[in-house]
Structure formats: structure tokens, C-alpha cells
């Protein structure tokens, strides 16, 4: 024991402060959430064990949750892949530019994701009256004859939130892809050209993508997390609850039960299901990424 401490004591001392906080605020909360999901708990009385009741009620007795699942999957299935490929394609195009232009375009595409509340400007652009910029434009061009209430009409509001989400989705993965592309050895391309790579698409598939597979995996994790975790920004754009629950996602359902109704057992059951879904999706994507090149 003493020899072990002499050898590793400093290492554990270095790692400890972070790890204590990491366990207290991330690992243990996940375990608590899983445990609480089998109870009924309102934060005033001690939790009462209810077995699978929360899950049964969620999946078979909660119509609003079914809407939330449908919206979340629709939202994730559209914004996740589109944003991922947008990050990749744009990073790829940008990488071909000369350095000054590259810096300019990187900033242009990355800026929305770090601009905080600026996305709320979309509520002005998509405003439901004729003063809304998009309504004004469409009215002038004669495409529509009366203003569309973009953010309150259940047929349009989820799509508007998807557009806004895509607009601000070129974040960490985008930078990771740009950096990954810059790190690829130029001689690989020269060798490829000699070996018969004819056009940019072959080069992308056979050389570029396999060389940046680690970044692709990192980017995938970031994209999956953000596309399944949509909720806060949707509420900011269309309010809560949205018309006919058309913008209701698993996260907004979770916030409803956790922050408003204080049914913590039920809320953590929602969180646990969401977490399992994200893990499963990540496994699937990792499997797909192995097939590149």
C-alpha cells in the first residue's frame, strides 16, 4: 500500500479535485436519476418505491409523451444528420480556400453557435404578422396572401425551430472537422493521385474521411447529444406549451414534470429513457462510421 501510494499518490492528488466534482455532478446524478425513476417523489415527502409504474404510465398512459417522442425523433432525425453533413461539407469546402478566406468563412459559420441569445432574432424574422420579415417578403412576392403565424401554427412551428437549430448548429463538431482536415498529411493526397484517385469525391471517400475518422466519431457524439437534447431553445422560440404540443419534445416534457409539477420520479424516468436512446444511437453511428472508405 505504501509503495502504491508513493508511486501513484501524486497522480491521484492531481486527478482528485476534478474527479470528485465529476462524480458529484455527473456520474452520481445519473445513478440517482435511474434510482429515482422507480419511485414517486415530490421533493417534500421521502421517495416511495413504485417499481415500473412510471415507465408503464409514460409509455402506455401519457398521450403527450407520445407526441413528445414523435417530435423528438423527427427533430433529431432531421437536424442531427443535416447538421453533421453540413459541418463536414462546409469544413471540407472551407479547407480548400486560401488562408484569409478560410478564416473569414470559419468565423461566419461558427459565429451563430456562440452568439447566445441572438437566435431570438428569428422570432422577429418569422413574426406572425405582416411586419415579420419573411411574411413581408412572401406577401410581396405573392407566394402567400395572408401572413402565416409561423411560431404558433402547429403545422409550421416545429419546422421553423429546425431551421433556427440548423442555423446555430455549426459548433464544436464543425471546428473539429476543420482542424481534422488541416491535420491530414498532404503526401497522402499525392500518393492517392498517383494511385488513380480521379476526382474530389473519390479523394474524400478513400483518403480524407478515413484519415479523419477519429474527428468524425467525436463530431457524431456532439451532434447526437445536441439534436436529442433540443428543448430549451424550442421553448424560447415558440413558448411553453406550444400550440397543440406541436413543439413538445422529450426535454420539454422533462422540464414540465421536473421544474413545474415537481413529479421527480416521473421526470427522472423520462431522463433515463432519453439517456438510453442517446446511447443506442451513438452505438449505431459508431458502427456506421467503421464502414467508411
Amino acid at each position, binding site marked *: 500500500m505504501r509503495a502504491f501510494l508513493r508511486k*501513484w499518490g501524486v497522480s491521484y492528488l492531481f486527478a482528485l479535485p*476534478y474527479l470528485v466534482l465529476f462524480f458529484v455532478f455527473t456520474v452520481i446524478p445519473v445513478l440517482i436519476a435511474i434510482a429515482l425513476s422507480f419511485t414517486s417523489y415530490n421533493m417534500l415527502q421521502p421517495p416511495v418505491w413504485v417499481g415500473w409504474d412510471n415507465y408503464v404510465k409514460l409509455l402506455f398512459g401519457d398521450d403527450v409523451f407520445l407526441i413528445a417522442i414523435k417530435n423528438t425523433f423527427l427533430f433529431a432525425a432531421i437536424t442531427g444528420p443535416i447538421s453533421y453533413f453540413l459541418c463536414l461539407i462546409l469544413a471540407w469546402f472551407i479547407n480548400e*480556400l486560401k488562408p484569409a478566406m478560410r478564416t473569414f468563412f470559419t468565423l461566419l459559420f461558427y459565429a451563430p453557435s456562440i452568439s447566445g441569445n441572438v437566435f431570438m432574432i428569428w422570432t422577429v424574422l418569422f413574426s406572425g404578422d405582416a411586419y415579420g420579415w419573411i411574411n413581408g417578403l412572401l406577401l410581396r412576392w405573392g407566394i402567400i396572401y395572408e401572413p402565416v403565424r409561423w411560431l404558433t401554427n402547429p403545422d409550421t412551428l416545429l419546422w421553423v425551430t429546425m431551421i433556427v437549430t440548423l442555423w446555430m448548429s455549426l459548433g464544436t463538431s464543425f471546428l473539429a472537422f476543420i482542424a481534422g482536415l488541416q491535420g491530414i498529411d498532404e503526401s497522402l493526397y499525392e500518393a492517392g493521385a498517383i494511385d488513380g484517385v480521379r476526382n474530389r469525391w473519390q479523394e474524400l471517400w478513400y483518403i480524407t474521411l478515413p484519415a479523419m475518422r477519429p474527428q468524425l466519431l467525436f463530431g457524431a457524439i456532439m451532434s447526437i447529444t445536441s439534436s436529442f437534447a433540443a428543448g430549451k431553445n424550442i421553448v424560447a422560440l415558440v413558448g411553453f406549451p406550444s400550440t397543440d404540443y406541436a413543439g413538445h419534445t422529450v426535454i420539454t416534457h422533462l422540464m414540465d414534470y421536473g421544474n413545474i409539477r415537481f413529479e421527480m420520479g416521473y421526470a427522472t424516468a423520462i431522463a433515463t429513457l432519453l439517456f438510453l436512446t442517446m446511447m443506442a444511437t451513438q452505438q449505431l453511428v459508431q458502427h456506421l462510421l467503421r464502414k467508411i472508405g
Partner: protein
Amino acid sequence: MALPIYRKRVTRSSGGDFASLVMLLGLGAFMALPMVYVISSAFKPLNELFLFPPRFFVKNPTLDNFKDLAILMSESWVPFSRYLLNTLIITIFGTAGHVLLASLCAFAICKHRFPGSRVIFNLIVMSLMFAPEVTAVPNYLTISWLGWVDTYWAIIIPSWASSLGLFLMKQFMEQMVPDSLLEAARIDGANEWQVFWRVAMPTVRPAWLTLIILSFQSLWGNTGSTFIYSENLKTLPHALNQIVSGGIARAGVGAAVALMMMIVPVTVFIINQRNVVQTMGTSGIKE
């Protein structure tokens, strides 16, 4: 013929270069338009804000919106400088603590490889997938149990343990700090803290600048809504949101606020762009 802004390669056709340039410019316009609209609206006088049909660019720029904002700020019950101070305290302490703790831990994980470090790192990679909302309920319980509700600590301490920062730092250190460099310092008689602080940290400057940016951005925009109840502890974004929530009458002031909130993180990124991109280059996950 190569387009003047493109680097030329054998496998590139001019038609393809042209098509990708068109796509870049098209998507670039889509990205830029809302930003341009915010900037131009912030300088619009009242009569231009409510024109029909709406006009995109400002015609007679004024500073009226910024003056209105200043008046609203001076009228607020808690002095505005207090909100700014709160945000600065949270941002500075949160960022400094995060960079230090995450770097120390990353150093121990990738340069000492202590028993258990692999398992811990895999846990951290897995936690990149946790939406913060998943742990929101238990975190609230923990923080109220610690008695941190309605204090700065409720925001600062959890931000120290962000897993993305540790992940990026560990990846960068592992690939960019040669073990031989650390070994040489040890032979010269440096203790582990000196090896970490004097040798490793200066070498990974791009990585900690990146951690600063990421942490700064999330704390600068933090509204502190769940944990902070006292008005004099609330943050700048919270106060600015209150002003904007005044509705359509505050459209101009709202744009001025958005512009001010946007300028800070964007400027910080512009200054550090090269370091961030270099750090992200090592972010890949090997299977």
C-alpha cells in the same frame, strides 16, 4: 483555370470549385443574414423598425436604441453594474477553476496513466453524451443539500467539472506533449507540480485557450435561472432578457442588447481562432 481564392490540386475540376464556391456563398448568406439584421436593427430609428414592408438595412442609423437601453438600465431597481459584476464573478472564477482542475486531471490521466485512468476516461467520453437536462433533477437536489442555492457557488462549482474541457485537454496533451520532455524535466530535479505547471502547461497553450473560450461562452450566457433567486445575485443575461421581454415596443432595444451580448464571445473567438482550431485537431476519438 483556378478561381483566385482556391488552392489548386490535381483532383479538382474548375466546375467543382465554382459549384462549391456558390454553395459556400449561398449558405454563408443564410448564416449571415440574421446577424446582419441584428446589427442593422440595433441602429434603426423607431420609424424604420416598424416599416411596412419591412426594410432589411438601416437607412438613417442612430444610437437611439443604445440610449434607450442606457435609460432602462439606470432605472432598474438593482444597479445594472451589479448584474455585470455577477456575470463577471461567475465567468472568471468558473473559467479559471475549470481550466486548472481539468488540466491537472488530464495531465494525470494521460501522462501518469494511473491505475483506473482508462476506465475514468471512458466514463468521461460517455458523459459527453449526457444532456445537462438528464442530470438536472439530481443536481438540484445535491446543490440544495449543500446549501448552495442562491449563491454563486451553485453556478461556479458544477461548471468546473465540464467533461468536454477535460476531454479536449487530455487529447491535446497526449498528442502534443512528448513524454521525453517531461522526463528531461524530472531528471533536472523538477517535482511533478513543476513538471505540470512549468513544462506541460506552456506547451498546451492552444488547449487551455480553447477551454477558456468554451467555458467563457457557456458562463457568459448563463441566466442562473434555476439556482439564483435574489435579484442582486442575478446575471447580466437574465437582466437583459427581462428588458427584451417587454415585447414589440422593445424591438430596437432588444437588437441593441443582442448585439452587445454577441460581440463579447465573437471577439474572444476571433482573437483565439488559430489556437482553437489547433486544439480541435486532436479532438478525435480512436476506437
